């Protein structure tokens, strides 16, 4: 008899506890989940399917990675932009971009390793450059000017660094057509919404 009463009481207590939990915890959980979701969505919304690259080097071998990545990203449906700064500005300098060179000094990755003492000799940069151009020709890799054209065609954003231009005395007319000019803030604003950001 008392056993049945105990069971009855247990059931009542359990129901009461359940009701209290539902009453107190339910709204709290809902509220916290909603808040977390809102924060998550706000973060997600601020970010675009975009890649932002800084091209800081002006040698032939270092001109390719930013150009290849930006054009490929654009071909994959991403928004792509390159900020050309310091020596990287040569990549969009119409007087220079067809004549970028490969350094023969301090470059142990050359297929025919060149000791630095030989790499320092006059004409070695020309030889290293001719060598790289011959491999690129073998795999039919496009030239830098062709890549720039492709990048423009694919709507990549190309930004020349204003400060570098001032320092090096480069004018907007010296740059290839269709590039924008901007400073660090221009790049940072662009990159702050990018999923991928690279310094090359």
């Amino acid at each position, binding site marked *: 008899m008392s056993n049945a009463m105990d069971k009855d009481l247990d059931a009542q207590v359990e129901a009461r506890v359940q009701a209290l939990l539902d009453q107190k915890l339910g709204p709290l959980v809902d509220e916290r989940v909603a808040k977390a979701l809102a924060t998550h969505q706000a973060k997600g919304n601020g970010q675009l399917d975009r890649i932002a690259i800084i091209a800081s080097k002006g040698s032939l071998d270092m001109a390719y990675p930013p150009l*290849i990545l930006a*054009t*490929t990203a654009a071909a994959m449906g991403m928004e792509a932009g390159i900020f050309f700064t310091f020596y990287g500005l040569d990549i969009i300098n119409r007087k220079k971009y067809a004549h970028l060179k490969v350094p023969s000094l301090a470059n142990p990755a050359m297929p025919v390793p060149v000791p630095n003492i030989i790499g320092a000799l006059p004409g070695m940069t020309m030889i290293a450059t001719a060598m790289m151009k011959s491999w690129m020709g073998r795999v039919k890799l496009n030239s830098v000017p062709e890549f720039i054209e492709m990048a423009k065609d694919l709507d990549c954003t190309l930004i020349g660094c204003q400060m570098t231009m001032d320092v090096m005395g480069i004018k907007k007319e010296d740059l290839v057509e269709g590039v924008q000019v901007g400073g660090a803030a221009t790049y940072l604003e662009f990159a702050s919404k990018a999923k991928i950001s690279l310094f090359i």
Partner: protein
Amino acid sequence: MTEMPTIDHELDCRGLSCPLPIIKTKKAIDGLAPGQTLRMIATDPGSVNDMAAWVSKTGHVMVAQTQDTGGFNFYIRKVG
């Protein structure tokens, strides 16, 4: 042997290296109507992984993929 899909457009990327096959494929797909199929032929061995990545990112469908002495054949159906 699975039946090969009807081809609406063919793109020859033989002899070209990364990233040209991807960029040319993108351009060719842009010119097709949804539901149409492109056959792209490439000799670059890297294009096998790259094309898989490209369809995964862009949402187009790789209907079939074969390899013969001429190179790698990719059959891609344009989605919406």
